């Protein structure tokens, strides 16, 4: 299973990179992907999107998904 992980704004700067790739068949959810990469549950202030739609931490991942993590939005 191949998943692309993207980070934006201050989160990208904190993590130090804009993208990760996961090839991990055992990773079922958005939260599990974050745990696998960063060793903690998904922080409450971090928003998640899958294939460019907002999702909750328990959203189930599918092969080829694009997962995005980002801080609260501040547009407008």
């Amino acid at each position, binding site marked *: 299973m191949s998943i692309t992980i993207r980070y*934006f*704004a201050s989160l990208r700067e904190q993590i130090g990179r804009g993208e990760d790739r996961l090839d991990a068949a055992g990773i079922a959810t958005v939260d599990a992907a974050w745990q696998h990469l960063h060793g903690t549950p998904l922080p409450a202030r971090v928003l998640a999107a899958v294939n460019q739609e907002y999702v909750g931490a328990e959203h189930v991942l599918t092969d080829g998904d694009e997962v995005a993590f980002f801080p609260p939005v501040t547009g407008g």
Partner: protein
Amino acid sequence: MVRLETAIFDPWSTLRDFEQTHDMGDGRSGAAAVFVGTMRDFNAGDGVRRLFLEHYPGMTERELERIADEAVERWPVNACLIVHRVGLIVPGEPIVLTAAWSAHRNAGFDACRHLIEALKHRAPFWKREDLANGEQRWVSENTPA
């Protein structure tokens, strides 16, 4: 219609061009409600020299489209327009334009307000400020209404 702008835009000529090139409902639109947000030279008590507006190419456009579609579903509006700047901008430049055309004014106002409120809560944009004192910081949450 939604559009991201990478360079300075004039909201007023954008509105005129949009009206001239889009179907406003053949004489059915008696009301246009518009909001324009412009970069201020201060935020949270500090002077701001410059702003970098990051977005999520693809998702940002899709989220703006969803917001515009919602407004058309919830209120009797004939047309909606959302324009948002991305990239580097300086004080005085427009950041965002939302507009709704309708037969009567309440629907226009309500739809226009929904566009800007939903955009501020949901559209993936992030502001990084260059302060007058030389510091750089990400805006951590949106400005008060």
